[in-house]
């Protein structure tokens, strides 16, 4: 039982780690958005797994996941719009180019 729980949890945490790593290392904003999605989804997996294995009697986790997905979608849409904006201005989507505001 626990084994199977871990079998779900460890990949999800790994996924989260990948997301973080991608966020910190990738230049392209689109790639960064993808890694953000990875992080959010790993969280969703957590919820689902906890719900399914630890508290099978109820559906909080599941519902949370549904909402989380919706929120993620909204975030992506917004982020994409802004990235396009940036692209219009600078003709690239390199996150290390947007350094005008600092110090």
């Amino acid at each position: 039982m626990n084994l199977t729980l871990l079998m779900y949890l460890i990949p999800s945490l790994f996924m989260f780690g990948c997301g973080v790593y991608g966020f910190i290392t990738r230049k392209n904003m689109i790639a960064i958005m993808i890694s953000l999605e990875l992080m959010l989804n790993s969280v969703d997996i957590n919820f689902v797994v906890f719900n399914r294995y630890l508290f099978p009697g109820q559906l909080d986790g599941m519902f949370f996941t549904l909402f989380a997905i919706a929120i993620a979608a909204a975030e992506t849409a917004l982020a994409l719009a802004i990235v396009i904006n940036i692209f219009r201005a600078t003709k690239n989507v390199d996150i290390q180019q947007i350094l005008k505001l600092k110090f």
Partner: protein
Amino acid sequence: MPLSYTIAVIAIPLFMFLFLGLAGVKMSRKLTGVLGVLGMAVTTVIAYGVALTYFFGTGQGQIADGVRQAVTVFNPDWLSFTDTLVVRMGILLDPIAAMMLIVVCTVSFMVHLYSLGYMSDHDGNPEEGFQRYYAFLALFTFSMLGLVVATNLFQIFVFFEMVGVSSYLLIGFYYSSPAANHASKKAFIVTRLADLFFLLGIMILSYYTGTFDFNQLVFGSNGANDMAVAQSAIASAGGATFLGCSVTAWALTFIFIGGAGKSAMYPLHIWLPDAMEGPTPVSALIHAATMVVAGVFLVARLFPLYVIEQGAMEIICVVGAFTAFYAAAIACVQSDIKRALAFSTISQIAFMMTSLAVSSADGALIEIHGGTGLGYMASMFHLFTHAMFKALLFLCAGAIIHAVHSNENDKMHGLHKFMPITSIAFLIGCLAIAGIPPFAGFWSKDEILVAAYHKGFFWGLWMSMVAGMTAFYMFRIYFLIFFWKKHEVHTHHAPKDQPWTMTLPLIILAAVSVVAGFVPAHDLVTWNGHHLHTQLDWTVAGSSVAIALVGILLAYKLYFKENDLPERMKNAASGLWTAAYHRFYMDELYQFITHKVIFQGICVPIAWFDRHIIDGFFNMLANATGSASFAIRRLQSGSVQSYVYIYLVGALALAAVTMVCVLI
């Protein structure tokens, strides 16, 4: 209340000061001068009234069973430190106070009168600052009178400060001249240093005896100095000691230092010669007759305490004797007549101090230390006579200076023909101070020598020698001024006797100097108010007169006619001569200590420390903040990824550290 009108003696000068000081600028100079003289005249009359009533009047409660009482006229609270320790400002009359009233008022009046002429140019127009001058004179008179009638130690201290300030103002009267400026500063600061010790002395004494009041310190139930009271006052210290000496001895020594500062005892004498920068009448009033004897007066006030604390008394004795000789030696070579007179003043005051000091030990003091207190009487007597003839001498000097516009005696020579009255007055003064009978000085100085011989042969001999030197240097000055060689006239008009305003005081004082010796001092100003039986001790008197004559003859030989003897003597002992001429380099020593040690060695480093270390520290804090804020700006690098990275590290560190702290 008997003698309650004494208040007028204090009040009138104070009023004159305020009035002349505030309204003076609006009035003409002459008017202020006249008003000042009038005011002083009134004061003098009242003061004589008071003193004579005290001495000879009856039914004023001042003589009880043959003893002259100290009469406290009134004594209101001024400043209460605690319920018991209260500073009062009052008026106390006892023999010496009454005598000082006479001295101060006489001399002051003379000087007021004299200044009318002295402070004017040859056409009799008063010079600039005339109002200020008379205001300050009034202020000084007020302070001095307040000092002599003080009812308690603290009041004396208060008026010590006041006379100090008025002397400061008067020395610096010609405030444009740097020399006067410097002299006034010096006078004030040196006496202030002495007053610091005076203050400490009062602190200690009042802490242990719990009072400032003479009535509880020295005056007995019968209102005169009383050994028993002094004993109990000392005893109330409970034998407390500090560094081996009893605290009261410390206190009295400190108090003496305070007096020594005012009375220019060695080594605190250095301010007095410079003080001659002031107008000469001022020197006559303050630095010859009145203020400089405040120290003697102070010691005399606490006489019984000193008698008990013999240690302090010994110090006074040694300092006094040494100063007498030291100053006399310097006086022998000074060329500036005012400075020469100043040193003779120092020497004479030292006489009084010594005489006070020796008096406790003369004979075998009968009651406790017993004795007749001859020296005490002599000292007060000499104070009186000296005030008269030294004022006379100074006023003469002033007349001469006013005539020839110089202090140097080589500008004078042979003035006898031009200024006969002045010359005679000066001669009388010299005879008086040299101690030639029947002039005033003889009587008082003779008593002093007797008292000194009572203490011991050495002391007597020493003082007699100084007396001889006195005769010598006084007549040296006299001959150099009035004879030596013919006076060559190089000013546009020849020197002559001065107007009556200046001559009259000379005549009066000369007369006084002749007769003052016959005042029955042994009846009036004895230490315990009893009549004191004295008879002239011919051995002492004769010897002293002989010595004086020798001195005079020597001076005559050397200085009456122009010759090269003095020159040769000078060359013979040139080193000694130069040292004496430069007052044995005391001023240079002080200069070194104040400028090099204190200013360069303490003040400047402290100021630097303040600006650079302490202030620097606070500025450093500010700069540190600034540089810290500059150092951390890299965090705000502008790159989202680094932001997120720091974010993540922060969150994980938060978790990790807490885990380590909580779980392990």
